[in-house]
């Protein structure tokens, strides 16, 4: 029986963001942009979607005069990622 794939995670950029954050305590916007190779605008939109879903927490602050965005995966995001990996395995294994 195939498990349903979470549509929020079944997108290249959002999955890349979550996969990066899964092994980290936190990562800032610059690090995520470097890791994913995405444009700043697109990355902002996807971070916002994941934040609204409660999968990641976003902290906005200032480093000197520059705005600084830090992202952390939440427990809900971690569970969603684990469920997504389980679902993927069910497809690959069949």
């Amino acid at each position: 029986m195939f498990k349903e794939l979470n549509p929020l995670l079944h997108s290249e950029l959002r999955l890349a963001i979550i996969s990066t954050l899964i092994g980290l305590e936190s990562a800032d916007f610059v690090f995520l942009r470097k890791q994913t190779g995405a444009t700043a605008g697109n990355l902002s939109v996807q971070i916002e979607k994941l934040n609204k879903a409660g999968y990641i927490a976003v902290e906005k602050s200032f480093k000197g005069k520059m705005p600084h965005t830090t992202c952390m995966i939440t427990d809900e995001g971690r569970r969603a990622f684990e469920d997504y990996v389980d679902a993927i395995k069910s497809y690959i294994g069949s």
Partner: protein
Amino acid sequence: MEERKLNEAESLKLITTMIQETRMNLQRDCGTPFLIWGYATVFISLLQASLIYILREENILFVGYTWFILPVVGWIGMLLFNRKKHKTGARNYIERTITGVWIVLSISFLWILAGNLLKNADILYFTVLIMGIGTVISGIAIQDRSTIICGAIAMLSAFLFPLYEAIVFSFAHDGSLMLFGSEPSTDLLKINYAAKCIIFATIFIVMMIIPGHILNHKYNRRCSKN
């Protein structure tokens, strides 16, 4: 990278790649703290072994105070390194664990220093043992065999200090203490102190400088390939 749907195989490949790349990027320069503390300790040990011969006898007691240069040099080096490291913009749990372990061990080191001032506890033996434990734990956390082996060798080498003392110190028939089989003269005490500093420096080369270079070489080469 765009917002496009992936097939299942692509998803799994993307997850694996992102996790591996993140890990690799954070492992860059992970041997540098070992090098900072390793080189600082070797330098201070060799400085002490030299000063014992250079300084006049009435000033020899000041040789021991050069140990206080070590935390100053080490922490300045670590501050500069951390400033550079935090520019990467990410923090991981392993890094936090290792930092915690070394903070606890540094506090233990201060207790040893206090014990040494109060009663002549063997500071070199305990320092090597504690730093060896820290190196082994760090090696386990970052899953690096060479770091674990070098740390374990250092832990075992700590025993060289009591062994050395058992060999060079003995008692004469009248119960007086002998050094290298003779009455302890200033020259023999100097040789004894310098020898212990050299053993200490050698252990730190094995415990920190060798794994530090191995780690930097291994991970920086992997990172530049990606």
